[in-house]
C-alpha cells in the first residue's frame, strides 16, 4: 500500500471512494497485515448510524454534556484558578510594573559588557542552572536519546513500562554545561513554575507565579526523558513516497491514523449504535459514513483502561502521557489524546522555551502604553488619540520549505488572523525571509515560491507590505526562515479577548469549512527536523484561501462594530483543539461542543482529525444567545459559513460529543495552559570558543584606493546588501492609502489618522551571524538595529515583538543559544524601555545535527505624532551637509565584509551600546520633529559605505565626502548606534546642539550632490555603475 504512487496520481478508473479513503490509504503504514493500527481500521463493523437528518436545535438548546462524566465534580485541579486570574488584561503589567532600573545608562553598560563575553565564558552569571541532578555532557545526551528511541516505551499489552535505564525512573538527569555556570539565584524548581500559564510564548506576568494546581512537579518528568532524537519528535509523520522509484522509508502509521485505529474498540465492545443516545444531543443532518469506526468515547475509555494508545507517534513522551491519565483519572479517549498531544507540543505549549521567555515579563520596563501584554494572541499598545495598535511576528519556516508558496501564504494568513482576533483591523504586513545561498538551486525553488506566496496572500487581502528583510546564508539552505508580521489598529474600546465567559453563550465556528489540511501539522510538521526523508513528508499541506480571509476580515469588522462578540479566537495550529481549550480555559471555565456540527469539507473526517485539522481561514466566536441571529446574518452577507457548535458552561469541563457520545471531558486549562514545562539542559556549543577566537583580524584588508572602490561595489552587489526590488516589487505597498514609507526605507511608516497625522513606524531585523558568535549580544544587536531603524524615520520606539528561530532545543548547544538570546533581549528591552508584547518561538530549524545560526528576529514599533514629519533615507538636494552620528570602532566580527569577501565568520560581533543607541534615537527623533533633517539612514550591515550607496541611489543624487580616520574601518565597520543624516541648510548648528546635549559624537562627512559617490582623495563611483552593481544580482538568479 505504501507503494501507491502519489506522484502519478490516481490510476485511471480509481474508484471514486471519496477523498478520505484515499487519504488514509496513502497514510497507512507499510503492510496492513502487520500493522495493528492499520488493520483495525479495516475491521470495525459498520456503525449503523442514524441517517435521518434532523435540523439543528435552536442554539440555546445546546445540551449540557450528556452522559455521566460531566457530572463528575470538578477535580481539585479544576481550571477555576486559571480563568479566574487567567488572562488578565495586559494592564496587569502596567499595574505591577517591573521596576525600572534607576540608571538605564549603567544598565545598558552592563548589558553591553555582558553581551561580549570572552570565549570561555559559558553563560551569563544569572543564568538558571537546570533544576537538579548531574548534567551529562552533550555526547551523552545524544546517545541517551538514541537509546531511548530504540526502547519500546509501551509494552505490547498496553501496560506502561519504563525504559530500562530511563532517567525518569532513576531520577532526573540533567546535562551539565561545559563549565558549571555561576549561580546566584535559586532555580525555580518544578512546582510553582512548572505549569505556569502561558499559552503562547507570552506569559502574563501575573500568572508566572501561578500555582500548578497540585499537578505533579516537573522534575517527575526528567529533562532528559523527553529527549528523543529529533527524528523521534515526529516519528510517524505520514511518509509517502513521492517518486515511484524512491526507496520507501520504513513508515509507521501517521499519528492521526494511529489515533483512529486505536479508537476502534476492542472486539468485545458494543457497537456505537448500541450505546444509548445522549438525551438531548443534536442529531446531525449528515449521513453516517459507511464503515465509520466506532467512537472511542469516555465510557469506552473507562472500560478499557489498558487500551494502548499512540502517544509516542503523536509526539508525547511517557511522562506526558502519564500526566494526562493522572489529570483525567483514566486513559484519555482518542479525541482527548489528540487535544493533549497537540496542545502540549512544543509548537503550542512552548514547553522548552517558557522558562526563558518568562524574563520578557519579569524584566518588562514600565510602559503605560501597554494595554494588553503577553498572553493574548498579540499585545496591544496605546498610540494616542484613542487608538491602539497590535502587532506580532510569527514563523512559518518548515511549511515554507515543504511547499514554498502555500507555506508562506498561510504564514501570512495565520498572523493576520491573530491580529484580527484582537479586535483590530489589519493594516499592513512585513516579512523577514532567510534562504540558503542565492545561487543554490534549492534557493531558486524556495525563494520565488515564498515571495509569490507572501505577495499572493497579502496582496489579495489588501494589506500593504511595508518592509522586512531578505537574507542569504548557507545555514538556511534546507531551513528557510519565513517570519511574517502583521499590524492592526483599533480603538481602545474595541479590544477583543480570547475568552469564553458567560454560561449559555453560544460558540460559533465561522469561516472556511474543515478539511484534512495539515492534520498533525501542529505537533509534527511544525516541529519536525528536516532530513533526507522530508520529501516524503509532503502531504498535509495547508492551502490558503486569501479571498475567504478577506471576507473574514470585513465580516469581523462588522461584527465588532455591532458589538456582537464576547470573545473570539482564530484557529491556527491545533485548530479546534486550541480554540476550544483556550477559549474555555480563559472564560467561565466550561464549554460544551457538539463536534458533529463542525462544517466539513470532507464528510468522512473523524473527530480526532477535526480536532487536529489546520484548515485555514477559520475563527471561533463566543456570542450571547440574543445576538446569534444578527451574527449569522452578517456572516451570510459576506457569504461566510457560520455554525453554532456549542455553548459556554460553568461546569469547569470542556465536553465534546460526537454521534451523541461524550468523547472529550477534560478541564480545559490542563490542555491550554498547564502543559509541561521543561528546563532543558544547556551548554555553550563545543565550537564556540574556537569560533570566537578566530577573529577577522587575520583577514587581509583592501590595500589601496582601487581595492576600496572595488570593495564598495562588491558589497553593494552582494546577496544580502543588493537591492531587493525583485522581491518587494511583488508586494502591494500602496493599498489602503496610508503607506508613508515602505521598503527599502529603514522602517515602514503608516498613517493611522488622516487629520492629526498620527502614525506608526515598524522595523524587523535580525542577524544570525552576530547571534552565532554571541547569542546574548546577537539578540541585543537585532533589537538595537530595529530600534535605530524606527528612530531613523523620526518615530519614538514603543514596543517589541520577536520571532526566535533556533535549532533543536534538545541540543544543549542550541538551548544555550536560546537561553542567552532571550536573556539578552529581555535585558536590552529593559534598558531601552521597550517592552516585549508578544512573539513566537520556532525550534528544530536544523538539518540532521546542524542547526541554523540562532536567528532572533526582532520587530520594533514606534510612534509618529505626525507622519508628515517623517524622514526618509533618500538624499534629497544638492548641497545639504552630510553628517555621521555616533562612534565608529574597528568591528568586523560577523560583518558583511568578512562574510562576502572571505566567507569568514569568527570573533565577536560589534559591541552592544544601548545607552548610545538611546542617545542617537533621541537626536534622530528631535531632529525629525524640528525639521532639521532632510535625510536619515541607519548604519548597520555593510557599514557607512552601504548606507551612503543606498541613500545616493534612493534619491538619485551622489555625495562628496572626506573620511576621518582609517578609510577601510570608517567605510565598512559595523559599529552600532550610528546613522548618516543630511542636514537642511541652516539647521547645522541646532543639530550640533542636540548631539552635544545627548552625547552623540558628530562627524562632518561632506555634502550631497553630483552624480557619483565620491570619497575625496580615494575614489569616485558613478551612480549608474553603483546602480548596476546594486540591482543586478537577484534578477540574475531568480528571474
Amino acid at each position: 500500500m505504501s507503494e501507491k504512487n502519489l506522484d502519478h496520481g490516481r490510476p485511471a478508473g480509481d474508484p471514486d471512494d471519496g477523498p478520505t479513503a484515499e487519504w488514509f490509504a496513502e497514510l497507512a503504514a507499510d503492510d496492513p497485515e502487520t500493522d495493528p493500527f492499520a488493520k483495525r481500521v479495516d475491521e470495525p463493523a459498520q456503525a449503523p448510524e442514524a441517517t435521518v437528518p434532523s435540523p439543528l436545535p435552536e442554539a440555546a438548546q445546546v445540551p449540557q454534556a450528556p452522559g455521566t462524566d460531566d457530572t463528575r465534580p470538578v477535580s481539585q485541579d479544576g481550571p477555576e484558578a486559571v480563568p479566574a486570574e487567567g488572562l488578565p488584561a495586559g494592564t496587569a503589567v502596567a499595574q505591577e510594573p517591573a521596576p525600572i532600573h534607576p540608571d538605564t545608562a549603567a544598565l545598558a553598560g552592563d548589558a553591553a559588557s555582558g553581551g561580549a563575553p570572552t570565549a570561555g565564558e559559558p553563560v551569563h552569571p544569572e543564568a538558571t542552572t537546570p533544576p537538579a541532578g548531574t548534567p551529562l555532557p552533550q555526547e551523552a545526551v545524544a546517545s541517551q536519546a538514541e537509546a531511548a528511541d530504540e526502547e519500546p516505551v509501551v509494552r505490547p499489552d498496553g501496560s506502561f513500562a519504563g525504559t530500562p535505564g530511563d532517567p525518569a525512573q532513576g531520577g532526573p538527569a540533567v546535562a551539565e554545561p561545559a563549565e558549571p555556570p555561576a549561580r546566584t539565584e535559586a532555580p525555580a524548581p518544578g512546582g510553582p513554575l512548572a505549569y505556569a500559564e502561558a499559552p503562547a510564548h507570552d506569559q502574563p506576568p501575573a500568572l508566572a507565579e501561578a500555582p500548578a494546581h497540585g499537578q505533579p512537579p516537573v522534575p517527575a518528568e526528567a529533562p532528559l526523558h523527553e529527549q528523543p532524537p529529533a527524528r523521534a519528535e515526529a516519528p510517524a509523520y505520514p511518509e509517502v513516497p513521492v517518486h515511484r522509484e524512491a526507496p520507501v522509508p520504513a513508515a509507521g502509521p501517521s499519528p492521526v491514523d494511529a489515533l483512529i485505529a486505536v479508537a476502534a474498540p476492542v472486539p468485545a465492545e458494543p457497537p456505537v449504535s448500541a450505546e444509548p443516545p445522549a438525551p438531548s444531543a443534536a442529531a446531525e443532518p449528515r449521513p453516517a459514513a459507511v464503515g465509520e469506526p466506532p467512537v472511542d468515547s469516555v465510557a469506552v475509555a473507562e472500560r478499557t483502561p489498558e487500551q494502548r494508545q499512540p502517544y509516542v507517534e503523536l509526539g508525547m513522551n511517557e511522562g506526558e502521557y502519564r500526566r494526562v491519565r493522572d489529570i483525567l483519572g483514566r486513559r484519555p479517549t482518542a479525541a482527548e489524546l489528540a487535544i493533549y498531544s497537540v496542545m502540549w507540543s512544543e509548537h503550542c505549549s512552548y514547553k522548552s522555551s517558557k522558562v526563558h521567555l518568562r524574563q520578557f515579563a519579569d524584566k518588562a520596563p514600565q510602559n503605560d502604553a501597554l494595554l494588553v501584554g503577553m498572553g493574548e494572541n498579540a499585545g496591544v499598545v496605546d498610540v494616542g488619540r484613542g487608538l491602539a495598535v497590535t502587532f506580532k511576528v510569527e514563523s512559518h519556516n518548515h511549511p515554507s520549505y515543504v511547499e514554498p508558496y502555500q507555506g508562506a501564504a498561510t504564514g501570512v494568513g495565520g498572523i493576520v488572523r491573530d491580529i484580527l482576533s484582537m479586535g483590530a483591523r489589519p493594516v499592513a504586513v512585513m516579512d523577514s525571509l532567510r534562504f540558503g545561498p542565492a545561487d543554490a538551486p534549492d534557493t531558486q525553488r524556495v525563494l520565488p515560491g515564498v515571495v509569490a506566496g507572501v505577495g499572493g496572500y497579502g496582496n489579495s487581502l489588501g494589506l500593504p507590505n511595508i518592509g522586512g528583510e531578505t537574507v542569504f546564508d548557507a545555514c538556511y539552505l534546507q531551513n528557510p526562515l519565513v517570519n511574517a508580521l502583521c499590524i492592526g489598529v483599533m480603538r481602545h474600546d474595541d479590544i477583543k479577548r480570547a475568552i469564553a465567559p458567560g454560561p449559555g453563550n453560544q460558540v460559533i465556528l465561522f469561516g472556511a469549512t474543515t478539511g484534512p489540511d495539515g492534520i498533525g501539522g501542529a505537533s509534527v510538521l511544525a516541529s519536525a527536523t528536516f532530513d533526507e526523508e522530508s520529501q516524503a513528508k509532503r502531504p498535509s499541506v495547508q492551502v490558503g484561501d486569501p479571498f475567504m480571509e478577506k471576507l473574514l476580515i470585513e465580516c469581523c469588522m462588522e461584527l465588532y462594530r455591532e458589538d456582537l462578540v464576547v470573545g473570539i479566537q482564530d484557529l491556527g495550529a491545533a485548530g479546534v483543539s486550541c480554540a476550544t481549550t483556550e477559549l474555555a480555559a480563559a472564560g467561565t471555565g466550561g464549554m460544551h461542543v457538539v463536534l458533529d456540527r463542525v462544517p466539513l469539507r470532507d464528510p468522512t473526517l473523524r473527530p480526532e482529525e477535526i480536532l487536529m485539522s489546520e484548515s485555514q481561514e477559520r475563527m471561533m466566536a463566543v456570542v450571547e444567545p440574543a445576538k446569534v441571529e444578527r451574527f449569522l446574518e452578517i456572516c451570510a452577507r459576506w457569504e461566510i459559513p457560520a455554525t453554532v457548535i456549542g455553548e459556554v458552561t460553568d461546569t469547569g469541563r470542556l465536553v465534546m460529543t460526537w454521534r451523541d457520545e461524550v468523547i472529550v471531558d477534560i478541564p480545559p486549562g490542563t490542555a491550554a495552559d498547564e502543559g509541561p514545562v521543561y528546563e532543558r539542559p544547556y551548554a555553550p556549543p563545543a565550537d564556540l570558543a574556537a569560533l570566537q577566537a578566530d577573529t577577522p583580524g587575520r583577514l587581509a584588508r583592501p590595500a589601496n584606493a582601487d581595492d576600496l572602490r572595488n570593495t564598495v561595489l562588491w558589497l553593494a552587489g552582494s546577496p544580502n546588501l543588493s537591492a531587493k526590488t525583485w522581491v518587494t516589487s511583488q508586494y502591494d505597498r500602496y493599498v489602503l492609502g496610508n503607506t508613508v514609507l515602505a521598503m527599502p526605507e529603514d522602517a515602514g511608516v503608516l498613517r493611522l489618522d488622516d487629520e492629526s497625522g498620527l502614525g506608526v513606524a515598524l522595523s524587523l531585523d535580525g542577524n544570525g551571524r552576530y547571534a552565532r558568535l554571541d547569542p546574548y549580544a546577537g539578540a541585543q544587536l537585532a533589537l538595537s538595529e530595529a530600534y535605530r531603524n524606527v528612530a531613523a524615520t523620526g518615530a519614538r520606539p514603543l514596543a517589541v515583538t520577536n520571532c526566535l528561530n533556533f535549532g533543536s532545543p534538545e541540543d544543549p548547544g542550541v538551548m544555550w543559544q536560546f537561553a542567552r538570546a532571550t536573556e539578552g533581549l529581555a535585558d536590552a528591552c529593559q534598558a531601552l524601555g521597550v517592552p516585549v508584547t508578544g512573539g513566537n518561538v520556532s525550534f528544530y530549524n536544523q538539518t540532521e545535527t546542524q542547526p541554523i545560526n540562532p536567528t532572533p528576529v526582532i520587530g520594533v514599533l514606534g510612534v509618529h505624532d505626525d507622519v508628515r514629519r517623517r524622514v526618509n533615507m533618500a538624499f534629497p538636494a544638492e548641497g545639504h551637509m552630510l553628517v555621521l552620528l555616533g562612534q565608529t570602532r574597528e568591528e568586523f566580527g560577523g560583518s558583511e565584509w568578512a562574510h562576502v569577501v572571505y566567507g569568514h565568520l569568527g570573533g565577536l560581533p560589534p559591541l552592544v551600546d544601548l545607552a548610545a543607541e538611546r542617545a542617537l534615537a533621541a537626536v534622530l527623533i528631535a531632529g525629525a520633529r524640528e525639521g532639521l533633517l532632510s535625510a536619515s539612514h541607519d548604519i548597520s550591515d555593510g557599514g557607512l559605505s552601504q548606507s551612503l550607496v543606498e541613500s545616493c541611489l534612493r534619491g538619485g543624487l551622489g555625495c562628496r565626502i572626506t573620511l576621518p580616520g582609517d578609510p577601510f574601518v570608517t567605510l565598512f565597520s559595523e559599529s552600532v548606534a550610528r546613522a548618516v543624516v543630511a542636514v537642511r541648510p541652516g539647521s547645522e548648528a541646532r543639530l550640533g546642539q542636540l548631539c552635544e546635549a545627548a552625547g552623540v559624537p558628530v562627524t562632518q562627512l561632506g555634502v550631497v550632490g553630483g552624480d557619483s559617490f565620491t570619497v575625496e582623495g580615494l575614489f569616485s563611483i558613478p551612480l549608474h555603475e553603483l546602480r548596476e552593481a546594486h540591482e543586478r544580482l537577484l534578477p540574475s538568479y531568480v528571474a
Partner: protein
Amino acid sequence: MARVVVDVMLKPEILDPQGQAIARKLPQMGFEGVTEVRQGKRFELELAGPADEAALERVRQIAGTLLANPVIETFEVRVLDE
C-alpha cells in the same frame, strides 16, 4: 508526431478555493444541481516521435517534476486521438 494531454488536478484532499468560489456562485446565477467544482489545468505536449510507452513515461516524468506539484496535485496522461 503525437499530441499528449496532461490533466493536472489538485489532490482531492487539498482545498481548492477557486473551485469553491465558482461553485458558490453557480446557484446565485440560477444554475442548480452542481454540488462541487474542482479547477485544474490541461497541458498539451506535442511529441516529435510516436506516443509509445517510453515516450509516455517521459511525459509522466515531465508531469511529475514540472507540470504538477506532487505535493498538492495529481495528474493524468493520455494520448490525444488525432
